């Protein structure tokens, strides 16, 4: 089966790879929140820092950006919505609305912010093993009452493992239906139902087999806990991120 996405872990030994996953999650949340309050100067500094780190980690940003083509369509919609819905000095008058300078400015700003958050996500996903993300979720959920953290972590792991398999299955079903001329049916609802039902049936069958396979390997909730250790570099990076965040907010 071919590689499905470049939005996945890429092995390496850079600083981004070595920072503890719990700190990385914290940084992603913190920087995303700050990013939503930054203006162009702050965004420019953040982008250069982020690109520097991505280059240092030897991540393939171009292949990551290729995966973002659908996100770019979403950005275009957001941009247009912002342009048309912000009041201000009119630039172009349309019959139903008007394009304002402020709307144009606002649209670009929002799109820049969202793009940076997505690049941040790309840097996180590409430098973090899925198993450690699962371990971190388990660690964060441990003090939360009424949430079975081990079950949640296992479910996360299984989703990460089985999403490509389900996509592959959907691809196979779609090809089998194309081979039988489904493209001649123009009704998208008909085509979607013909794809969805076999896919769901196959997915449930697979889930049944998975349960048997997990039980055969003595599955229990009371498993060996994942190993996560804090290092000095994690605390140093926390201080650095906090300092930079404050500086960027003050700009």
């Amino acid at each position, binding site marked *: 089966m071919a590689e499905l996405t470049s939005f996945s*872990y890429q092995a390496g030994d850079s600083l981004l790879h070595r920072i503890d996953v719990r700190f990385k999650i914290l940084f992603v949340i913190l920087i995303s929140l700050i990013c939503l309050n930054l203006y162009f100067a702050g965004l420019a500094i953040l982008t250069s820092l982020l690109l520097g780190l991505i280059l240092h980690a030897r991540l393939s940003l171009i292949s990551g950006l290729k995966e973002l083509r659908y996100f770019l369509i979403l950005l275009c919609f957001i941009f247009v919505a912002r342009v048309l819905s912000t009041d201000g000095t009119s630039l172009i008058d349309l019959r139903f609305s008007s394009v304002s300078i402020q709307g144009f400015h606002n649209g670009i700003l929002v799109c820049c912010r969202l793009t940076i958050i997505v690049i941040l996500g790309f840097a996180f996903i590409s430098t973090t093993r899925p*198993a450690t993300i699962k371990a971190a979720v388990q660690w964060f959920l441990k003090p939360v009452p009424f949430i079975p953290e081990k079950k949640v972590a296992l479910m996360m*792991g299984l989703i990460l493992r089985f999403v490509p398999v389900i996509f592959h299955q959907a691809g196979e079903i779609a090809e089998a239906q194309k081979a039988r001329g489904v493209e001649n049916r123009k009704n998208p609802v008909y085509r979607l139902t013909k794809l969805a039902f076999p896919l769901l049936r196959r997915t449930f069958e697979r889930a049944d*087999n*998975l349960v048997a*396979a*997990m039980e*055969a*390997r003595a599955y229990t909730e009371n498993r060996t806990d994942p190993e996560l250790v804090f290092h000095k570099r994690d605390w140093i990076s926390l201080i650095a991120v906090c300092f930079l965040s404050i500086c960027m907010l003050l700009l």
Partner: protein
Amino acid sequence: MNIIEIENLCHRFADGTFGIEGINLNIREGSFVVIAGPNGSGKTTLLRHLNGLLAPTAGMVRLAGIPVEQNLLRARQLVGMMFQDADSQIVGETVYEDVAFGPHNLRLDHRKVKRRVLNALDVVGLRDFINQRPHLLSGGEKRRLAIAGILAMEPKVIVFDEPFSNLDYLGVKQVLQHITALHQSGQTILVTTHDLEKIIAHADRMILMHNGKIIRDGIPTSIMAGIEAFGVRTPCSFRLGLEVKSWLS
């Protein structure tokens, strides 16, 4: 010594049909047994009783003298099972994570888990794929990964349910090589198949199942005659009266 003892085992499904009926069977430690039969003959149902995945309607399975239901964890550690669809058996996001799944369930410490995982990956020759995502492996590599996942549990018996289905010639040879190597290292091997051609040269015992019952049991050469009447194809060498040759030779 018998590692598996099955007494009058019956399993009736929810719709009332019998999956298996009146199975009596002893498997000696270190033996290589092929369970043959057409689809729906009860092979998989029988196997799933060996580690308690299915509970019998009647009868009992004992592993090294202890009933399966008395200690399910022990049963699942003793009997490793490779399923027909390797894709459904692989649960980890990486090769390492998948092999470590069993040892983690046994609550072993991280050092022991790592040792077991690396040993198992060495045995199946997948050490170089340790950080690979399983869905990117080939069919044969996925089967080998499933074998590694079983080996990391250090079982005494390994059960293979149709291990060669959907594999190309090279994949069949690789999996067969691992099965025979495991047998030579002292493991008890049980293989179910409806295609005897690939495996029969290595088996020291064959069990033929039909409609949920054992109808023949013995040395392959002695019970091969007329098996096609029960929906299992006679291997070419037997048809032509030639010496049985391994696919590995």
